[in-house]
Each structure stands twice: as C-alpha cells, then as structure tokens.
C-alpha cells in the first residue's frame, strides 16, 4: 500500500476501499434493506441466472440503491427462469419470472425505485406450511 499523505488522502482512500467491505456492512442490516434473491439451482443457472445476479448486483450498486443481492435454491417455477424474488421491507415479497437483463433493468427502475409493478410477476399460488388460512 502506498503512503497516506494527510487526512484528506486518508478519507479518499477510505471511500475508494469502502466497496471492498460494503457487502459485509450491508449484511449487518440486511433486514432494513431491499433484498433481491436470484434462483440459482442447476436449472436456473443454465438459463442464465448467474449473469442476471451479477447484473443486478452491479447495477444496483451503480445506481446507488442499497440492496442485498443473494442467491437461493430452485423456486419451483422452472418454466419461467431465471426467477428473481424482490423483498421490499414492509411489503409482500414478489417473484418475477423470465428475467433477462432488460427485465432486470425494468425491475430496478420501476418496482424497486418507485414501487410500480411490472409485467412478469408470478402470482403466489401456494401456501407455506407455517401459514394459516387467511
């Protein structure tokens, strides 16, 4: 590492390095942040989910949206892969299907930024074992 000349230099260096550990800081407060989960089972990966996950993580970062992008197992909607689940704090989770880069971009711009729903939502048609009849 090069020499740090003064306080301004140190502050600049910190801001440059911040991204190296920002993922760890985000995970400490993950329940307050938008969570994006990308299905990443074998079937999902074949349909390109790893690129979508990378795309989402990088774009959210570039657009200065604090979000946690994680991977999850098969969501069961193998016909509609890649699938992406978006969890906005205080809202019901929503699953989007057939997510390509254009769709991912739309999800960020519309649903995540403004709350506006976009095409491609997979309606929830099942109950989890711990959910009671409403």
């Amino acid at each position, binding site marked *: *590492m*090069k*020499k*740090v*000349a*003064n*306080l301004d*230099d*140190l*502050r600049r*260096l*910190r801001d440059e*390095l*911040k*991204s*190296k*550990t*920002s*993922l*760890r*800081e*985000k*995970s400490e407060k*993950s*329940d307050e942040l938008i969570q994006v989960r*990308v*299905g*990443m*089972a*074998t079937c*999902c*990966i074949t349909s390109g989910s*790893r690129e979508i*996950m*990378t795309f989402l*993580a*990088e774009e959210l*970062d*570039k657009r200065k949206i604090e979000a*946690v*992008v*994680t*991977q*999850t*197992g*098969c969501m069961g909607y193998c016909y509609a892969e890649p699938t992406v689940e978006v969890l906005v704090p205080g809202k019901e989770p929503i699953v989007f299907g057939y997510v390509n880069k254009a769709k991912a971009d739309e999800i960020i711009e519309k649903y995540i930024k403004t709350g506006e729903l976009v095409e491609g939502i997979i309606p929830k048609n099942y109950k989890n074992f711990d959910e009671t009849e409403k």
Partner: protein
Amino acid sequence: MSDYKIHVLVCGGTGCRASESDQVFDNLTSEIKNQGLDKFAKVVKTGCFGFCEKGPIVKFIPDNTFYTQVTPTDAIEIVEEHIVKGRKVERLLYKNPETEEYISDSKSMEFYKKQYRIALRNCGIIDPENIAEYIARDGYQALGKVLTEMTPEEVIKEIMASGLRGRGGGGFPTGLKWDITRKVQNDTKYVVCNADEGDPGAFMDRSILEGDPHSVIEAMAINAFCIGAKNGLVYIRAEYPLAIDRLKTAINQARECGLLGENILGTDFSFDIELRYGAGAFVCGEETALIHSMEGSRGEPTLKPPFPSVEGYLKKPTNVNNVETYANIPAIINKGAAWFSAIGTEKSKGTKVFALAGKINNVGLIEVPMGITLREVIFEIGGGIKNGKKFKAVQTGGPSGGCLTEKDLDTPIDYDNLIASGSMMGSGGMIVMDEDDCMVDVAKFFLEFTVEESCGKCAPCRIGNKRLHEILEKISEGKGTKEDLDRLVNLGNVIKDTSLCGLGQTSPNPILSTLKAFKGEYLAHVIDKKCPAGVCKSLMAYSIIEENCIGCTACARVCPVGAISGQRKELHTINTSLCIKCGACIDKCKFNAVIVN
C-alpha cells in the same frame, strides 16, 4: 463497486484454527477456484466470531448464513451446494437447542441478539492482516481527526466525557489517566498497551489483537498524541503467537502507509510501536510489575505512588492501558462521547467483553452493554447450563474475583454493582458452575493459581496464601474443623489488607465469597465430613448395594486398581482402602448397584 457477490468469512482465531480452520479456508479457496467462481465469491480469513463452542465457523455474506463445526471436507460440499446451487447445507447450520430448529441467519441466533459490539466491531468481519479492510471501515479516521482537527486537551475531554473506564479490571477512568500523564512535565514519555492477559478462562484481549490489531495501534497513537509521547510498547505474552504475528504484520503495514513513523499524516507528530514479550506471569498484568519486566528486571510490583503516570518505564511518565480499553478509543472519537455515554449504566459506560466458560452451553466471547443482567448473559446469550443441570454460581473477575449466585442473577452488571456483590469486573472472564461443582474445590482451584503466581515479594501474599491453601486442603480431606472456617476469614482479611499489590489484595476473594454464599457446604465438609456435590474424593466412599448387584463382574473388570472382588453371579464388594475413587465402576454398572456416599 464490489467485485465479489459473495464473501465467505472463515474464522482464523486460535480456537477455530485448533480445529483445522486453516484447512477449511484452503479448501474453500481451491474449490471455488475449481468451480471457476473465483471472480464471483471471495474467501476471507477473519478474527474470532465469538461462538467458539461450535467452531470452526464459516459465515456467508450477504445472506448471513452461519455454518458451524465445518470440517475441511464439508468445505467442498459448502461450495457445491451453497455457492453453485444456492442451497444451504442444513446439517451444518446452528440448531436452536430448545426448538431443534435450524437457524440459517446469524441475526436470529440468541447468542448474537443481545450483543452490542464496539471493541469487537471488526472481529469476525475484516481480514486482520489487511490494512485496506480496516481503513475501509473507518480505520485511522479517528487518528486523522485527532492529529489534524483537535488539540490533546480536546481529545482528553472527549474521552473523559465518554465515561470510559479501564477494561483490564481496575475500572480507573481512562480520560483521567491520560490527563494526569499529560500534565507531568518530561521530554520523554511512553504509552504501553497491557496485553498480558492472565486470568484463567479470559481471552478477550487475545481475540481483539488477533481479529482487529489496527484498532489498538490507532488508539495507542491517539494516546501518545494526547500525552506527548513518541514511543509505544505492547507488553504481550509469548504464549500468544498468533496475536503477536498479526500485531507485527499490522505494525509493518501501518508503517508502510505512514500511519506509524515520522510525521504521521503530514503533521509534526511522530510515533512508533515496539513489542515486548512476557513469559506468562500473572503478576505482570499489574502495571508496575509489567514495567519492571519490560525493563528487564524481575516482574515484581512496587508500591504506588509513584504511579506509572509520573514515574514508569525507565523512570519516565508512562500511560498503561489494557487492550480492550484501547479498542474502544477510535469508536469514541469517530462517533462522539455522547454516543458512547448513552450506552451502559450511570457510572459504567459503554460495553464489556466477557469470555464465557465452564458449564455453559455457548462457550465463547461476547460483548454486551454495561447494565445487562447475569441472567441475560448466562441464560439467553449463553444458552443456559450444560446438560440441563441447575445453575449454582458464576465466578467473575477470575482468581481475583468472587462467586455470584442465584440471588445476584438480576443485578445489572457494572463495576460498582459487582464490587457491591462481593466480586469484581476483572478482565471479564465468567466461569459458570453447576450443581455438580463443589465450592470448596472451586476456591481451592483459584487459590492454587494465586499461590503459583504470587511473585513472593511480600509476606502476606507469599506465606498467607500458602496457609489458606493448606487449610482448604485440610477441609477437602475431611480433616477440617469449624475453627478452620474462622481462620480462613481472619487470614483472608489480613492478606487483603496488607498485601503489596492487586494480586494479594484480591486473592482471598474466591474463598471469602464462597464462604459467605455457601457456608452450608463448608460446614458439611468440616462437621458431617461430606462433600454434597461429590467432588472431594477423600470424603467419598464407594459401595455396592446388595439388592441391585447381579454379579456380572463388569465393575471388577473395569477397576484399574483391582479393588473390587466377587464371584460370578454373586455379590461384589469394594475394598475402600484400595479404591482410588475414579468412578469407572459407576459408569460401567448397568444396574445402578454402585453408589457414592
């Protein structure tokens, strides 16, 4: 922008390394590479996560998946399942002992819920051997702010206002100590970091140095700026090789970056740090003994005053602070005294790191706000007593502290409350005891330690503790009398009043506090000649119940000294003069025929 989408944190603390965490790290790294995912996921070796009970720990970021007891072979499975397929390896997750449910997110673990991490803020999060990760998390910002924007007086005022007190045990206000040392006129002054952690069962200082060494370096530099010193020394035990290694690496990195050395950050402040190794004597944690040891003399304490602040290392004014105290300093400067003093109780601000040990489910390292109760620490964070046994007592403050019992469980923990209950904060070891522990034996254990560690300089400590130990020995052998109990109290008080240093002044505490809280147990030993917990061997007699014995010969075969005799299918008997009371026969007998009286 973050290059990696997944960070895999592997504990590189001493505890986890002892269970092959280095190999886990290597296997994770190579398997990720084999799968072609080395641009996607990064493995980081961090400091201690605190959950030592279930090490080695591997934690996934950002989803906080917390894997426990990971073996090198598991590492390969984790990469295949978690990173490649997005599935969690359930069998390695932490299981809630009560509900038997797997917990995947570390934030849902009782162990972490009530913790508040200031001194341990970077432990288990950053790579301690990489200064870039420390700087990324606001490292050295406090030093920069202090050198560029504050005067020494302002910094000391801030530390005083924060209410920070020495975390090594004494609880002396840190700001006041700095102020006294600053006001002494001298061209040469020293700052010393006391890393001579000696309490049995305490490992917080080691963990901080292993997990976040830069926080201590930064704080020592701030300390030096405030008192007008150019040289710093860390007195560390030679038996902490990993902490020494990481500290050396950190010091070298800080020098390379110009954060140690001449004209730090373009100011006229210069400061550097050297290490001094201790041979592991408990008394060298006492600051005057520590200073003598650093000077190359015998590690013996001297009378105070003069305090080290006035006349310390090489007779120069010296400021000695403990590792954990230092680790708090950068956070206080960055976030302000008001933030720090809002945490804790009226007279004890901030947090305290405790090392949980003994008969407790979650053995490990925790940091909690002052004012939390022992009940919360032991039963919520600590997960209660092992094997569903009953809580009996907890020893805080190590061999200098005392036993706290059931009635103290709801007392808020702080310096003053612990002293009022007959114990002390000490460096933060907490040894939990259950119904199977004999308090006479516990007191004897701690006294054995002080007898060993007494430097021998003053008579009360050297001779007095030895006599106390003999009386305890007598009691546990069933030869004690009621008068011996009074002798313990009288002699104990004399040692406390007349010893030269903290070691002797506190060494009778374990006896005095157990005698107060468990008088009945001592009386059982001296009057009934019985050890209620069944620990003191001399007071036990093994025998076989006639009705239960079927003559299977299992006990006779397992007895290592041939004390059991009897024919097949006939009653067996134990020759008590040969019996060494090892308990092997009890464990072997399937018919509950062997009993202890």
